[in-house]
């Protein structure tokens, strides 16, 4: 059922699937990078433990900068560090970077083409009980409008680890997004990962589900259920929202003739927007959007919130049915003409 070449976790659909937060992979990668590259430095905005930068801090105290609660300054400092040859990783919540510091990111980081690696932790509604102030659902939209910015939303711990290592080796500004909650470990050490190259995790020809972040697991889960009913979905892990893997996307749209985008982000401006913009120009097909329906969040358990706002496998299944109906009526319509 799943694409063998992707070497996904074997227990993916079992109850014993390993659950870890994506940010753990960030912390692991930073320690690896600290060892392999003396230029890597880390800045934290009074959120060292929760952004998982404390491992780096303990191992490389002289390359760790506590920046306090001044995110705008922190972004600027990181840019200055990069201009003298360092590779700074900025760690705070997505609500604040990019939320608080967008102008600094636009000018000091983006326009300057600084080699800074910005990380938005605790992104998405799955932050849970903290409520709407901390549930950043607009970060991908903000970041992907910036010229030259690389934007990545990895799906699990291992993919985050790989993305972080690759980000360090990529020249230029990068935004990495993580969640707070534990999510299933979908990928393994052997799963291929390349920034800007989407992975087809499951093949199919009825509908292509283009997902990233925690919605990748939900998409796989939905596809598995749909298969039992004879609906074959392709599942694409579009971890990099910018630069978007246009080749894989257009291939998926051509093959399936309908797409669903699934992300833990506002429906406007995120992965769904990026996919729609690209397909409109290359290969328009009916598209349904799984994401936050133009709303602020609220307190609750991550699962409760994901269900309420329609970012779960259940919602994906509904969207697949809808888009298949649209695809069919489109065909009839075309036939009549």
């Amino acid at each position, binding site marked *: 059922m799943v694409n063998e070449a992707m070497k996904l976790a074997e227990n993916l659909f079992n109850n014993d699937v390993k659950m870890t937060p994506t940010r753990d992979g960030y912390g692991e990668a930073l320690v690896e990078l600290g060892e392999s590259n003396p230029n890597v*430095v880390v800045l934290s905005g009074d959120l060292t433990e929760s952004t998982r930068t404390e491992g780096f801090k303990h191992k490389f105290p*002289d*390359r760790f*900068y506590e*920046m*306090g609660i*001044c995110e*705008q*300054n*922190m*972004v*600027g*400092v*990181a*840019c*200055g*560090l*990069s*201009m*003298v*040859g*360092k590779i*700074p990783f900025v760690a705070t919540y997505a609500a604040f970077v990019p939320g608080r510091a967008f*102008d*600094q990111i*636009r*000018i*000091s980081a983006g*326009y*300057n*083409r600084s080699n800074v690696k910005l990380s938005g932790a605790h992104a998405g509604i799955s932050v849970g009980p903290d409520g709407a102030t901390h549930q950043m659902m607009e970060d991908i939209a903000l970041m992907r409008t910036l010229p030259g910015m690389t934007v990545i939303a990895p799906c699990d711990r291992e993919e985050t680890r790989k993305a972080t290592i690759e980000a360090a080796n990529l020249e230029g500004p990068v935004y990495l997004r993580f969640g707070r909650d534990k999510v299933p470990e979908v990928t393994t050490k052997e799963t291929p990962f390349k920034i800007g190259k989407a992975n087809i995790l499951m093949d199919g020809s009825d509908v292509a589900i283009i997902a990233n972040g925690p919605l990748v697991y939900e998409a796989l889960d939905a596809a598995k259920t749909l298969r039992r009913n004879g609906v074959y979905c392709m599942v694409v892990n579009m971890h990099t929202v910018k630069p978007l893997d246009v080749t894989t996307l257009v291939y998926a749209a051509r093959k399936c003739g309908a797409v669903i985008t699934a992300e833990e982000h506002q429906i406007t401006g995120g992965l769904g927007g990026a996919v729609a913009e690209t397909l409109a120009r290359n290969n328009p097909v009916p598209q349904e959007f799984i994401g936050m329906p133009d709303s602020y969040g609220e307190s609750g358990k991550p699962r409760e919130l994901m269900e309420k706002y329609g970012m779960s496998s259940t919602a994906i299944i509904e969207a697949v049915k809808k888009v298949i109906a649209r695809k069919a009526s489109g065909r009839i319509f075309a036939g009549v003409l």
Partner: protein
Amino acid sequence: MYSKAFVEALEQKSCDIRGDILMMLKEAKSGHSGGSLSSVEILTALYFYKMKHNPMNPDWDGRDYFILSKGHVCPALYTALAHSGYFPREELKTLRKFGSRLQGHPHWLKLPGLETSSGSLGQGLSVANGMALALKLDKKPNRVYCLLGDGELQEGQIWEAAMTSAHYGLDNVCAIVDYNNLEIDGYVEEVMGIHPLVEKWLSFNWHVHECDGNDITSVIRALDHASQMKRKPSVIIAHTTKGKGVSFMEDVDLWHGKTPSPEQLEQALSQLDGACSVFKPWN
């Protein structure tokens, strides 16, 4: 301490830079006159006296770094760079024109000699801190200078950065405030007061130096003083006059973002002639 001939040479340089600023602004028909003119002696002192830099090799890793946080006064910086030899003086004429390397606000990827891009006020001191931290990490002696506007100090980020420089004991950072008392909407004290400024910086744990920012000797003395300070960052509060050197522009808020007409330029240049040896305009 500083020879008379040397000071006179710097004064002449300031005069020439002023003339070029006025000429390029007239040519561009838009841009910032007042704040460019008030910062001339500061830039002259930095580029022709204090800073280690190499126009033949702008990326020389032994250089001191200059960050123009108040990016709108780039006409003054561009002129200092051209006079230093980073690019031909001729090119000043292209300010703000389509295809020019001299963007309306500086873009370092376009022009040799620039260290950063700026234009959104309040960001420069943070970047200076980052450079200074990296230099400390590499145990290098280079210094980082950062020019701020007095109106710009209203930005919260400046004070986040001020805390940071002091917290990390960045004695390789020297901020300079072009204290010309004016911003766009009028006097700084009326728009959003920053008084008492010396006490503010002192309470943020900085070394504070005051000088007459339009007197070259006073500026270079303050710069020399600042570079001897240890363990804390230094700020030079440079008391200046906005529009300095041109009688009808001095201390007039309207000249913040206005450029001289051809007639006004002629009048302005004739005033420069009076101050020092003749300024040679371009043809």
